């Protein structure tokens, strides 16, 4: 006869030491779920495949795998339940407001998912004869047309797989253009409020990075920038609107100064949502900019990708765009995959194949759905929502800068001074209230930053509740409830996690014995 209680202790593992309200460790609809590897039954399989024919002799050249792999065996019902349960431990746009500044977490239409799955797109091999993929090439061409028109730029490189990849692409184009001019410029000036990928991308192209200080209005200090400019400066990297949620008011002068110094102007377009349809980067003097299709154009962020980061380019940089190029050929579209013909100056290839086509379908469907009128409305509503949040909170929290913001609003932690409550604590309290926290401690230019980006797909009622909750929490903080904040969250699937321990002795994979031990620790 079994000792049934083992079945409990097994599950208590996952909540070892904790005072569990239930025998199972579950809490109503909040269900604990062990790792796949802890559910292994040898031989069990969630896919039925025909028995392979016995080969007289394989052609693996004596390299047939003999050692077991160690993958767990589960049935389909268990796998479906496993991932359903995991999904229920996530917050998402579909669940509620996700005001993560600089991430543009907007609604992801299901239409786009449906279209990306059409066999005519999803079931195409990248190396099929060009004659059999004319529709897919037309798709790339149409999306390129939308991006070029919205930015006012003459060319676009479609292959980068994300924003950072786009930065790399842009900086490489700049380097290639300089080489073509026979110039060696190695300095790149990056705004100190820039996202970490900016300096990292510049360095990945062999540049050295210096930071441009911000002025007290949260913008680039024009004088300081001019002082930094010189014959050895290859480019500057700014984000506009910048990561303080502010439009760079001097941007045209900045562009002129940069061009006068013979350098290029790279703009991080992650915040394009604030100005799409209302401002064309080309009109600001920008030479090159990446667009995060997974932000402004709503391709789902997917818990960390896949993304897509096309890069629009000024004429001076266009010839150096990476391969492949979709071009209009004699009969239909053609694909240039080698650095010859028109693409002879291309700096080369950034990834396998042609780009994030599946994301292109989604982004184009999104753009067509909005149209020129809808996209302009997107920018206006995104900015309106952010300013509405600012107006609702300015008297109880501390906005870092005066005046209206663009699509996101930046607060610092002065309003928490002497409360014993930190930016982090406030964010964790928001989790109990049913919200995803805002971006914290970024940008680095203010202390204890709280960067809130509601996006245009949030309703006024949602913002009203969010504002009311933040107002109430700000009040709580000032009324000495520091302990409440320090303990938060208490209603989520997990309390605060020990990140120090995780980094001190990293457990980066499951292994039979140790994992159980560490779980039982």
């Amino acid at each position, binding site marked *: 006869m079994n000792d049934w209680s083992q079945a409990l202790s097994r599950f208590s*593992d996952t*909540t*070892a030491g*904790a005072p569990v309200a239930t025998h199972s460790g579950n809490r109503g609809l909040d269900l604990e*779920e062990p*790792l796949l*590897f802890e559910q292994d039954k040898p031989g069990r*399989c969630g*896919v039925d495949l025909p028995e392979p024919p016995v080969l007289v002799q394989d052609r693996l*050249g004596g*390299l047939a*795998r003999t050692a077991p*792999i160690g*993958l767990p*065996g589960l049935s389909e019902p268990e*796998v479906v339940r496993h991932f359903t349960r995991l999904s*229920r431990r996530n917050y998402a746009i579909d*669940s509620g407001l996700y005001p993560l500044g600089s991430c543009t*977490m907007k609604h992801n239409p299901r*239409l786009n998912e449906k*279209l990306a799955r*059409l066999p005519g797109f999803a079931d*195409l091999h*990248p190396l*099929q004869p060009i004659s059999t993929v004319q529709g897919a090439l037309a798709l790339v061409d149409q999306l390129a047309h939308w991006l070029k028109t*919205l930015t006012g730029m003459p060319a676009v490189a479609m292959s980068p*797989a994300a*924003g950072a990849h786009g*930065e790399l692409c842009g900086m490489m184009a700049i380097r290639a253009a300089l080489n073509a001019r026979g110039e060696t410029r190695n300095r790149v000036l990056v705004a100190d409020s820039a996202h970490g*990928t900016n300096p*990292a991308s510049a360095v*990945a192209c062999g540049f050295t990075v210096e930071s441009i200080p911000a002025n007290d209005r949260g913008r680039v200090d024009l004088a300081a920038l001019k002082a930094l400019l010189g014959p050895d400066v290859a480019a500057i990297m700014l984000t506009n609107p910048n990561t303080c949620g502010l439009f760079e008011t001097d941007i*045209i002068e900045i562009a002129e100064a940069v061009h006068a110094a013979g350098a290029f102007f790279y703009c991080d377009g992650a915040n394009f949502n604030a100005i799409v349809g*209302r*401002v064309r980067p080309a009109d600001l003097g920008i030479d090159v900019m990446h667009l995060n299709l997974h932000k402004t154009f709503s391709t789902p962020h997917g*818990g*960390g990708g*896949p993304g*897509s980061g096309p890069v629009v380019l000024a004429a001076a940089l266009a010839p150096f765009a990476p391969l492949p190029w979709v071009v209009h050929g004699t009969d239909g579209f053609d694909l240039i995959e080698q650095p010859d013909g028109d693409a002879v100056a291309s700096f080369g290839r950034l990834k*396998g194949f042609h780009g*994030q*086509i*599946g994301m292109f379908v989604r982004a*184009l*469907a999104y*753009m067509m759905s*909005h149209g020129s009128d809808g996209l302009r*409305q997107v920018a206006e*509503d995104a900015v*309106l929502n952010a*300013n509405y949040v600012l107006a609702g909170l300015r008297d109880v929290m501390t906005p870092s800068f005066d005046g209206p913001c*663009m699509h996101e609003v930046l607060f610092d932690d002065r309003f928490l001074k002497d409360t014993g409550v930190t930016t982090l604590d406030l964010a964790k309290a928001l989790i109990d209230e049913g919200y995803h926290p805002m971006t914290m401690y970024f940008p680095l230019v203010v202390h204890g930053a709280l960067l809130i980006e509601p996006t245009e797909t949030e309703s*006024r009622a949602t913002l009203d509740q969010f504002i009311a909750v933040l107002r109430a929490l700000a009040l709580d903080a000032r009324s000495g409830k520091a302990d409440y904040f320090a303990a938060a*969250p208490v209603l989520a699937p*997990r309390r*605060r*996690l020990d*990140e120090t321990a995780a980094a001190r002795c990293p457990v*980066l994979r499951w292994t039979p014995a140790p994992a159980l031990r560490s779980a039982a*620790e």
Partner: protein
Amino acid sequence: MRYLPLTDADRGAMLASIGVPSIDALFRDVPAPARRDGLVDLPRAMGELEVERALGRLAARNLGAGSVPSFLGAGAYRHHVPASVDHLIQRGEFMTSYTPYQPEVTQGTLQYLFEFQTQVALITGMEVANASLYDGASACAEAVMMANRLTRRRKAVLSGALHPHYRATTATHARFTGFELVETPAQPMGDEALVPLIDDKTACVVVQNPDCFGRVHDFTALAEACHAKGALLVVVVTEIVSLGAIVPPGQMGADIVAAEGQSIGNALNFGGPHVGLFATRERFVRQMPGRLVGQTVDAEGRRGWVLTLSTREQHIRREKATSNICTNAGLCALAFTIHLALLGEAGFVRLARLNHARACALADRLALVPGVAVLNDRFFNEFTLRLDRPAAPVVEALAERGVLGGVPLARLFPDRPDLAPLLLVAATEMNTDEDIESFAATLTEVLS
């Protein structure tokens, strides 16, 4: 507009509570010359039905690989993905959440990434893996740069049998970060001599298994030669299913594995999005690019997961980061994790055997076609044919007759006229006997 919740009444009231007369007032920081009043010259908003029709028409102008017998590989493979995979990755809680920066409410993403890291480590035979990179080609470039950091050397030896896209991607990074590449010419026949190219300036040697002609190799000796010179062995895998049938790179002594994971859980997608797999030795982990999920406990002592070792990453280290990568391939990694969870040990091994068996059947059948010679004596699910004429036009002719008959190597090696007659063909569990028959028959017809 269906995606915009604000009504004009809302907008008016909100402007009022903000205290500005109009929306333009909120854009006042935009320099006058850059302000646009009119609409950009693009079509107006469309309803869902109209968009569906427009993009449906574009889709209809392509020949779906599944609608005809199809034998393309060369870095992207057509496998059967169970319906539950696509259902689960579309759960809003997965698809519409961000990178898991707030672990208390993203345990779902964090746990599957931890499972993904474990699966990748297991099948490659390596100690640790990251939470994904963009794709196999960019992973290959990252591997070389990581080897440079680890060895403080700046020379990489690339096998000629490395997928040309991988080589090109790596070369791009080499050009801009200024490390040296030594490349051997692609040789469809015979073994290439890489060992003599390894010296004490060599950071790493990069090889592929199965290679871009479909050949499988034992790199054990090469690994020893690398290590003897203080260099690292980077093994690239473009068809990850092969690891269910052949000895994994880890067992051959690989130091870094850079692979393409599309074959498991992901559609062809005309080349993207795919998912880059990246695995290495535990002691190298702090030089690894990309995100890592680690296990820990919460305030109540319950097991949980977090993003860890972030001090390698751009958002902490900025210009000193190991890589500039931020968004990677999360949802494709989830599809990979779910599909591999369904397969498990038994299914993964059987799937690989099935692929090899289909390829053997295809090779035997095509060998009978006049004017066709099979070059490989060893392969997994892909091999190279030598035709009695240039392969590219043959493939065009096959396509006209409703067969997607492989990848002409001229497309990957345009600068190598000697490879023009070569055709790279792959078979998977998706290819029926009828598919193989009609390929052979059509090829016979085209070549006669």
